[in-house]
């Protein structure tokens, strides 16, 4: 049983997979176009709030060792409530990942396979996930531990190799579109920390549950640092991301890396790394969705569910007629879905569960005191 559980580093990398996968798409452009020169300031501000939220999640989970949000939902609202919460999270994971997959495949099609129908590109990635998930989830997690550090080093590499082109003054005007836009409207940018959603399901998967605090804080802080570096690369070198929407801004940034006339065209290596990151991301989504479904239905063999979920991901990713629809989901719908489901609903359930537990604890104490008095 312990063999199928995940360690601290593996869990941190798992959370970071989500941000790396999202950052490859148009998320950085959305941040830059919304907050302009104040984008880094906004990331620092939102990052601090995200760290506070993750600490709150850790505190709220403390009273429920080895339980995830589905188990906790059952504690406070019974089986019916548990099913509803489970279905909501499955829909959130599947829809989000499907449309991200669509956006990613659109980029691959434009760049490398202009004559190939996008259905085949999506199908190829889905088949790869089907094969990897059939082997063992731990295999995916171990791959993650290799791929994610490479992807993170890649962004640092982008940062340092382009440092001679940096214009740090691009952070001015310091408040971008204004204080209200940066700090009040900018709160919606907390949706960039999509990895928080996966924290709710981590405790039962961990080898050592006591490391949950460490995992939570390190993964969310690393997410904030990674995002700050990503945005810094784009803001300090390019002015056009603020006004021009690119399919993959990080890819565009990699095209600028050149070391003389010898090392050129490094973007292909970056794209290869990002394809692997995306495979890991979708594998994680499938694994978590299957776990939730197993919990709400109680079926014993969850491997049979893999094809169903992959078919769902494949079908949903084919729904948008064009890039505009799938990108508008990413920029306009996803942030509110994340805030509504992950932050409001998720934290709401945890708070209710904690209140219920405290009340239950107090009523137990009162009952004990009453019994003691009667005995006295």
């Amino acid at each position, binding site marked *: 049983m312990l063999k199928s559980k995940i360690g601290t580093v593996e869990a941190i990398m798992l959370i970071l997979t989500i941000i790396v996968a999202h950052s490859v798409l148009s998320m950085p452009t959305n941040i830059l176009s919304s907050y302009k020169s104040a984008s880094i300031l906004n990331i620092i501000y939102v990052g601090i709030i995200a760290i506070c939220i993750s600490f709150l999640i850790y505190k709220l989970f403390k009273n429920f060792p080895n339980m995830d949000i589905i188990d906790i939902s059952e504690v406070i609202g019974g089986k019916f409530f548990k099913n509803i919460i489970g279905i909501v999270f499955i829909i959130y994971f599947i829809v989000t990942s499907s449309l991200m997959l669509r956006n990613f495949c659109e980029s691959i099609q434009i760049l490398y396979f202009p004559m190939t129908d996008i259905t*085949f590109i999506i199908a190829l990635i889905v088949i790869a996930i089907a094969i990897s998930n059939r082997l063992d989830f731990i295999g995916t997690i171990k791959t993650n531990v290799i791929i994610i550090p490479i992807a993170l080093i890649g962004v640092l590499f982008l940062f340092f190799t382009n440092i001679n082109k940096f214009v740090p003054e691009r952070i001015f005007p310091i408040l971008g*579109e204004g204080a209200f836009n940066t700090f009040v409207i900018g709160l919606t940018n907390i949706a960039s920390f999509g990895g928080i959603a996966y924290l709710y399901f981590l405790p039962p998967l961990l080898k050592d549950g006591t490391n949950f605090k460490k995992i939570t804080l390190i993964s969310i802080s690393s997410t904030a640092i990674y995002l700050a570096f990503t945005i810094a690369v784009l803001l300090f070198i390019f002015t056009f991301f603020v006004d*021009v929407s690119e399919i993959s801004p990080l890819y565009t940034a990699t095209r600028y890396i050149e070391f003389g006339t010898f090392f050129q*065209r490094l973007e292909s290596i970056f794209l290869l790394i990002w394809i692997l990151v995306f495979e890991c991301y979708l594998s994680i989504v499938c694994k978590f969705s299957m776990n939730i479904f197993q919990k709400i239905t109680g079926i014993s063999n969850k491997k049979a569910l893999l094809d169903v979920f992959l078919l769902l991901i494949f079908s949903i990713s084919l729904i948008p007629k064009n890039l505009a629809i799938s990108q508008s989901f990413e920029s306009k719908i996803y942030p509110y879905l994340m805030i509504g489901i992950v932050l409001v609903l998720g934290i709401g359930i945890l708070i209710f569960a904690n209140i219920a537990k405290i009340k239950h604890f107090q009523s137990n104490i009162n009952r004990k005191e009453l019994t003691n008095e009667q005995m006295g």
Partner: protein
Amino acid sequence: MNKWVRNFIIFIIILVFISAFSSSYSSLNIDNLTYVLAIGIDKSDDNKLEVSFHFSNPIPAESSASEKVSPIINTVTASSLSNAINLVNGYQGRQLNLSHCKVIIFSEKIASEGISDEIYTLINDTQIRPSANIIVSKCNAKYYMQQIKPEIENLLSRYYEIFAESSKYVGHIPNATIGDFFNSLICKTCEPYAILGGINKDNSKTNSSTSSDFGDNNNINSQKDYNIKANDSSVEGENKVENIGVAVFKDDKLVGELNALETMAFLSIRNKVDRFLVSVPDPLNDNQYLDIYITPHGSTSVSVNTSTSSPYIKLSCNFTAQIYSMSENSKYLSADVLESISNSCNTYLKAMFLDYLYKSSKDFEADINGLGIFAAKNFTNTHEFEEYDWETSYKDAFFDVNIETSVKSGMLINET
């Protein structure tokens, strides 16, 4: 499931994927591609685009490595750049691949009318590299391409790749790329620029007669060496193409040109030159000039005061220098002499920088130095900065330049 059935299904899936991806493979197969090294864009008489493509010419197996191959240029007239590419695709029977395109040449005529459509189209192309250089040719772009005959390089692609590198050690041209051009085109605090190209008109005779007009006055000659642009130089050679100076744009339209001396000032302020040679007045000998290698020491510091509608821009540059020209009775081991030469450099460079800055502000009204970003520091939000309207107020700017030059020594000889 039966093992045979499963294997059969896998086989069918593999076949389907092979057929699905083969179309992309075929279209991007090296056998079906023609590599473009340079694109020249002119305006035709009927107001359409006249686009010329300079192709790489594969060296035949039987030819020796030193043998030069003649360039292949195709020209097409079309309503847009993309249509022009498409027409040549059909003509060549191969697909044009722009991933090795090193240079994009615009004629002066089309550049003055605006080139934003072409720039946006090229940036939208997945094959064009952001490092491709942009040249504005003072002549027809096709003619410019035809006159490129590199004497040292056998490979034309090699010439295209390295010619702009001289910007770092000569400082007569900027390394202007399409990536930077697009960046500046979108930017609200800076304006785009390009390399100024032209054709050598055999000015050697003209120049020698001009110098005789000035008699033996050495200072006039040495200064004239730097007041040149493309089309003006006195270099003779088989390669008729010469790139000297900067083509200055306001938005997407060409508004002016900088000569070699102004280009050095421009590159210095932008911290894009490693070393350049200037002729400064010799403080010890009237009417004589000293050739000095100037090396920027640290980045240019810029501060902008926006308290009035006319921005007051203060620049501070530090240089180290070495004396290159040498004559009899030179005494460069004396601290006083070096100090006086340093002062002469300061005065000369200050005048050179101020001339250039006021030219960019008053004549071109184009902030190609990107000084606007330093003005943005004075504002808390973009609305306030937009209200200040940097693009308009730059023409009313005042400049102050502080130059600190430290002349170190001569080179191998310090005293004669």
